[in-house]
């Protein structure tokens, strides 16, 4: 599992590298564009995701002790929190759509840095989109884990899949921990 996560680190790492290289070149445009993101929604989403990591950790903890009901409850809580995150993210995307900030023929941005701002928004949508896709996959895996738990496949001796699901979910959380400050925060002041 950790080898898979290492490949995931490289996958997201490439995007972070691209982001930071362009940030070095077009610092001013990045600053302007970044201020169009909603910091409150971003912060709430970070909190929601951290909560979901806690419920996930507690689900694994329950699996270690063999509490089938508790595992299911905490997994459902994690799925709900993950869905809240995706909902808020979708709302933010819709807002960007209304403001014509989605890169493409419809892109509209005031000022001389419009072209470079478009690059920022391209990174924004690709990185958060990839992150959201990982979350959707994570939610799918958790639904499977709930099914298996209810069928009594896991015990304190064998809860490996639940633990691996946890590792995956925490990894997705860590990606967001870096995305949030880089996209929303660093050009704020």
């Amino acid at each position: 599992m950790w080898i898979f996560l290492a490949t995931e680190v490289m996958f997201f790492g490439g995007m972070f590298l691209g982001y930071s290289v362009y940030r070095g070149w077009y610092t001013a445009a990045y600053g302007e564009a970044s201020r169009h993101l909603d910091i409150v929604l971003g912060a709430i989403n970070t909190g929601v995701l951290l909560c979901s990591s806690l419920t996930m950790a507690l689900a694994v903890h329950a699996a270690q002790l063999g509490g089938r009901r508790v595992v299911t409850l905490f997994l459902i809580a994690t799925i709900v929190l993950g869905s809240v995150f995706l909902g808020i993210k979708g709302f933010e995307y819709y807002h960007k759509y209304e403001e014509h900030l989605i890169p493409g023929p419809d892109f509209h941005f005031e000022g001389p840095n419009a072209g470079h701002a478009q690059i920022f928004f391209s990174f924004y949508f690709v990185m958060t989109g990839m992150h959201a896709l990982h979350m959707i996959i994570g939610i799918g895996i958790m639904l499977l884990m709930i099914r298996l738990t209810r069928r009594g496949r896991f015990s304190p001796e064998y809860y490996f899949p639940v633990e691996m699901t946890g590792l995956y979910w925490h990894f997705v959380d860590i990606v967001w921990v870096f995305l949030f400050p880089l996209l929303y925060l660093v050009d704020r002041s």
Partner: protein
Amino acid sequence: MSEHIVEKKIYYKVFGVLMALLGATVAIAYIHLGKLNVIAALTIAVIKAVLIILYFMHVRYSSRLLWIFVGAGFFWLGILFALAYSDFLTRGWLPLPTGWE
């Protein structure tokens, strides 16, 4: 696989620290520090990531072999950034020839 069962109390504590760091990083973002803003934001992000890896992902209680695998992932990420930036950061250091003459 970690056989060690972490106490619930530790999860709650780590979660509390993570939320406090989230508050701190948002607050610092509004204070004008110039280049320090990026450094502060990234430092806090790294602290949060390390806490999640060590406690939520149980790495702290895992075998040394697993530490190597985790470390290798980030080591390779380091290579990616180091080699890429050894190009991008040094491009302006030498005068460029104007063409093939």
